[in-house]
Structures are given as structure tokens and as C-alpha cells.
């Protein structure tokens, strides 16, 4: 409590921190609103700026961009029927029809109020559950952490869109990339191919900027760039108060679903939104229709999406497990600043944890205020020439990669990973698992080898309850597709055999 109070006073009275929060939230909203710029790309491109900041300010900056872009995605979903982020994919179903009826402003305000409510619930979830889970995390020693990393990697690969099998291979490739450079125990170099720069390992920033920034621009260049026109005027901003109140139950239910799904490693915001929306659709299927401008649909999607943001920070901070690519970038940011996410972070750096709580709360408030004031301006930004945006991102990719270590080699790495990401995308190989492998790989290696040194036996993984449970869940999840295929074949064979 003292730390929380101290962090609040420190952040609110520091003009630099406040300016960073405002700028990051604004940039996050703007980039999130632009179609083609994902939240992950936003975070990856902004990550180099945080490198020169002290850890607290870096988190204020990155959380501002993270939360801002999560909301920003809804602006384009409502105004031009294209979600800026995966989390806003269902906001468009009811938001855009409302906008087409000349009520774009009302739809945006519904979404804003709902996302703020979801954000607040997510924040409370983070503040309540994170310390509890961190305390439970103290039962985790190296065998538990090693298996947890295997579990996390497998879940993240499983949840990636595309082929699960290729996602697992991509994750393993990321894990290999994480081993490039000097081994932390023996100081022997691996995979350096005679290039001295590689002995320091592969920095997360050029990698993330390449995979999530440059790759997207390369994909974009394949076809003519189509700039969608906002279909409507903004019109009235405020919905009727009694109409907003009608959706309170939806807001509460959806935010709880969003929070819980957000806490589950690898579930991500897209799953949270889908579940929240589906739940409300089911509950009101007899009395209301969805998908034609129903405010309840907007509220369900938005509360679920933003509650998941706070939820996703729980496993990230307490166990070091990212829930999706965005939180994987945040893990990378913490590691760059020498902060290892996990239970120890709560005892060694309680002030930093308090800073994260305050930063998220500040970002929620800033997003609400800035969006209300600047709704019309954000809408106009959607018609800005794409060339300015894409050229700016390209030069930012290069500059940001250089700025990490003031090394031209990092620019080359960024180009290499951008091109590789593009090739992988063309071949249908998911690229996000590589990021998870790069982030979680070194932690897996460290804990696995420490386990074997301390316990001297592989059997330790099967003699402790937590590793056994996690390994069992991992095995079930990875083998499910096999069972699905076998069942499918049996059913087909039974059909072919006929009733006899």
C-alpha cells in the first residue's frame, strides 16, 4: 500500500513521466486505429524509445502504448469496418452498422465507456490476483519453472493461428535463436558463425521490429494499398444515459470473462472478446439481435477486450509467461531493463510493481479523457495519406534497431528477420511463436540445466506435483489434434462401412 501511494505521487508529480504517459497513450491510440498497424507492431516500433528510459518510465511508456493501441483498434473497427487489432474484431459487428446509421460518435462512446469499465475491472484483477499468484509462485523452483516454460511455449504455439505443427517448429527455432551467443554457465559461444557481434546474442528489439514491423510492410507492398474511407459523420457523441445503464449486466459479465481469459496463459485478447460476445449473444438470443448495431454487442466485445489487458499482465509479472505477442514484447522490455519477471519481482522490486499498477490506471484514465476530447481528430487521422505512415514506420524500424546498442549490425539483423518473417508468412509458418521461443528459451535452458545440476536426475520432473500436472496438460493439448484426426478417420470409415 505504501509503495502504491509512493508510486502514485512520484508518477503524478513528475512532468517527464506524465508527458511520456500522454505521448505513449496518444501514439498507441493513433497507431492502433490505423488498419494494418497491429498492437504488436506498435509496441515493437516504440520499444527502442523505452531503452534509454529508467525502468519505471519505460513501463509507463510501453503500457500507455499497449493499452492505447488496444482501444485504438476499435476506432477503425467502428468507423471503417476494419479492426485495427485482433481484440477489436467483434466491435465492428455492431459498431459499424451503428456508424452507418449516422451514430458513429455514439458507437465510439459506447465502446470507450465499455473499454474503460473493462480496463478498470482488469486493473482490479491485476492488483488482487497478481500478489496472490506471486505468493503461490514461491512454491516454484527450477524444475517447476523449466516445465512452466515448456508449458507456456506449447500453449502459445498451440494458440497461434495457422498450423500447430509449424507453430511448434517455429517456436523451437525461436528457442534456438535464444541460445545464440555466450552460454551463461560455461561462457562458451554458440551459433556465432564467426561473427563476434553474435556472441552477445540476438537482441529482442531488432528481432521484434523485424518480425512485427518490417514483415508487415513487406506484405503490404505486394498489392496496391487501399485506403478505406470512413463511411459516416461522427454525429452525436453521447448516448442516452438510460441506454448506457441498460448494458450494466453485460459489462460486468463480459469484463469478468475477459479478465479470467486474460489470466490464462496464451489465451489472448481475441479469445477473451470471442467468449464475451458469444456469451451475451446466447443470453439475449430470444429478445435481441446482434450484428446490426446493438450497443450490447459493442459493450460485450470492448469490456472483454480491455479486461483481458489487466488479466494478461498477471501471468506475465508473476510467472514470466506472456499471454500473446504483445505481452511477449513487454517481457522482452523487462528483460532488457534487467528485471526478471516472476515471484521474486514482487519481493525484490515492490516499488516497480506498484509503478506498473499506477501506470496502467493512469493509462486507462488518459485513454478515456484523450479519446473523448479527440474523437473527431482520431477519425480524421484515418484519412491521412498512408505513404507518410508507412515511410515513417520504415525509418523508425531502422533507427530504432540502431539505437538499441548504437550498432549498424542490429539494423542488418532487423532486415534479416524482417525478410525471414516475410518468407515464413508466405510459406504459412506462424512467426509469433519465434518471439515466444526467443523470450522463453533462455529461461527454459537456465532452469532445466540448473535442475539437472542440483537434482542430478531427470526423474525429478515426474516426482513433483506441479511439473507432472503441467506436463500432462501440455501432452494432452499437443496430442489433441492427433485424437481429432483419428476420430475423424474412424467416423469416415464407419460411414463408408455403412449401417451394417
Amino acid at each position, binding site marked *: 500500500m505504501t509503495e502504491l501511494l509512493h508510486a502514485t505521487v512520484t508518477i503524478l508529480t513528475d512532468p517527464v513521466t506524465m508527458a511520456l504517459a500522454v505521448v505513449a497513450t496518444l501514439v498507441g491510440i493513433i497507431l492502433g486505429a490505423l488498419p494494418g498497424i497491429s498492437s504488436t507492431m506498435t509496441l515493437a516500433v516504440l520499444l527502442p524509445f523505452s531503452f*534509454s528510459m529508467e525502468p519505471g518510465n519505460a513501463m509507463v511508456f510501453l503500457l500507455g502504448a499497449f493499452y492505447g493501441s488496444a482501444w485504438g483498434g476499435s476506432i477503425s473497427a467502428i468507423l471503417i469496418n476494419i479492426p485495427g487489432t485482433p481484440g477489436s474484431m467483434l466491435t465492428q459487428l455492431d459498431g459499424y452498422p451503428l456508424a452507418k446509421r449516422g451514430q458513429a460518435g455514439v458507437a465510439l462512446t459506447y465502446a470507450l465507456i465499455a473499454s474503460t469499465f473493462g480496463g478498470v475491472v482488469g486493473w482490479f484483477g491485476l492488483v488482487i490476483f497478481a500478489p496472490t499468484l506471486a505468493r503461490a509462485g514461491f512454491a516454484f523452483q527450477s524444475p517447476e519453472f523449466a516445465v512452466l516454460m515448456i508449458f507456456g511455449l506449447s500453449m502459445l504455439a498451440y494458440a497461434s493461428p495457422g498450423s500447430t505443427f509449424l507453430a511448434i517448429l517455429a517456436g*523451437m*527455432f525461436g528457442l534456438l535463436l535464444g*541460445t545464440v551467443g555466450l552460454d551463461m554457465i560455461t561462457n562458451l559461444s*554458440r551459433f556465432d558463425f564467426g561473427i563476434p557481434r553474435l556472441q552477445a546474442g540476438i537482441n529482442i528489439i531488432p528481432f521484434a521490429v523485424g518480425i512485427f514491423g518490417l514483415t508487415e510492410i513487406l506484405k503490404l507492398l505486394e498489392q496496391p494499398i487501399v485506403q478505406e474511407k470512413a463511411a459516416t459523420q461522427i454525429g452525436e457523441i453521447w448516448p442516452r444515459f438510460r441506454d448506457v445503464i441498460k448494458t450494466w449486466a453485460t459489462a460486468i459479465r463480459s469484463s469478468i470473462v475477459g479478465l479470467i481469459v486474460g489470466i490464462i496463459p496464451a489465451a489472448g485478447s481475441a479469445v477473451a472478446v470471442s467468449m464475451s460476445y458469444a456469451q451475451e449473444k446466447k443470453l439475449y438470443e430470444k429478445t435481441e439481435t446482434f450484428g446490426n448495431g446493438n450497443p450490447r454487442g459493442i459493450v460485450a466485445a470492448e469490456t472483454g477486450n480491455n479486461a483481458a489487458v489487466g488479466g494478461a499482465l498477471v501471468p506475465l509479472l508473476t510467472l514470466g509467461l506472456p499471454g500473446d505477442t504483445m505481452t511477449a514484447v513487454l517481457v522482452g522490455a523487462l528483460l532488457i531493463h534487467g528485471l526478471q519477471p516472476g515471484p521474486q519481482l514482487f519481493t525484490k522490486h515492490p516499488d516497480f510493481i506498484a509503478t506498473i499498477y499506477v501506470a496502467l490506471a493512469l493509462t486507462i484514465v488518459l485513454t478515456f479523457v484523450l479519446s473523448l476530447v479527440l474523437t473527431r481528430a482520431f477519425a480524421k487521422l484515418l484519412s491521412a495519406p498512408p505513404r507518410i505512415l508507412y515511410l515513417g514506420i520504415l525509418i523508425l524500424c531502422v533507427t530504432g534497431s*540502431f539505437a538499441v546498442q548504437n550498432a*549498424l549490425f542490429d539494423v542488418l539483423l532487423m532486415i534479416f528477420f524482417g525478410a525471414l518473417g516475410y518468407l515464413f508468412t508466405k*510459406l*504459412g509458418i506462424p512467426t509469433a511463436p519465434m518471439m515466444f521461443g526467443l523470450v522463453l528459451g533462455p529461461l527454459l535452458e537456465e532452469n532445466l*540445466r540448473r535442475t539437472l545440476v542440483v537434482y542430478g536426475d531427470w526423474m525429478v520432473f515426474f516426482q513433483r506435483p506441479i511439473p507432472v500436472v503441467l506436463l500432462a496438460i501440455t501432452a494432452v493439448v499437443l496430442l489433441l489434434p492427433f485424437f481429432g484426426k483419428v476420430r475423424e478417420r474412424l467416423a469416415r470409415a464407419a460411414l463408408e462401412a455403412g449401417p451394417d
Partner: protein
Amino acid sequence: MSREINEGAAGTESVLAGPPRVVDFAAGAVFVLIALIASWSLWTDPYLELGKVGDDPGPSFIPWIGTTVIGLGGLAQMIWVLIKAKKAGVLKTSGEFVVAKLWLPALLVVSLIIYQLAMKPLGFFTASIIFALPWVAVFHWRSGGAFTKRYLIQLPLEAVLIAGGIYSLFYYGINVPFP
């Protein structure tokens, strides 16, 4: 989202199960190639074996696991595609690797490499402007823009402003010592 769900060797959802494609085979081949490069690097390093002390499996342990999984997985993917192709009697091309689609992305990668190489001799600012000038025009053209007289002045101006703005942000804002 045109082909978000794809079948792998192990298979996930068979919603889009269709005839096997060349790219599915190539995806496996890419992993085999990665595994070959990685195993060559591990084999030819005599020092890595020295790292095995006591119960520590050594610095090459995780890399070998990763390399083996990637190599065998890639191989399994290739075999799976060939078996499916034999059954279906066809190996479909996806239309992804055509010059009409690839030339601009390839040109961007090449110009980025030249941009990187030019930074040291020309300086970051000059190199950025030289890079930005043609590419702002390319993006303008790809967005369906016409090259009227107005744009002959506006586009170079935008390129200089974007490059200069980002340079100033990093140089003055966070003291990055550019070449």
C-alpha cells in the same frame, strides 16, 4: 485470414484441408535447412563438448534438442506433403511466389541493405533522405496517387520531414550518436 487454418504434419483443424501445396513442402524444407545449418555449427565447434561438467548437460544440450526437433519435424512435414500429393495426384502451387507480388518487397529489402551500408560513409541523415525519397513516391504510387506537379514538390518535402523528424527525435530526444 484467407488461410488462417492450415494443416501440418500433425494436423490441427482440417477445415481447409485441400490438395497439398508446394509451399507446405517448402515450409518443411526451410526447417530442414535451418536444422542442417545449426547442426553444422554445433558439430564443427570442438569446444562445446568441453562444457559438459558433472550433471550439467552442457551448452550444446538445448541447441541439439532444438535442432533435432526442427530437422525431424521439417522432414516429417515434407514426407507428409509428398504422401498427400501422391494420394491426391497433384501438388498445387499457391500463387504466392510470383514476380508481380514479390518484386517490390524484394526491392525494399535490397534498398534497406544499401541504406544500412550507406549509413557509415554518408551519415545517417543523408542516407535516410536518399532512402526516403524514392520510397515515399513508391508508397504514393501504390496508394493510387497521381504524380501531378504538386506532388513533385510535396513528396520530397514529406520524405525530408519524416527522415529529419525521426532523426531529431532520436538524436536530440534520446541522444543516439548516429554515424
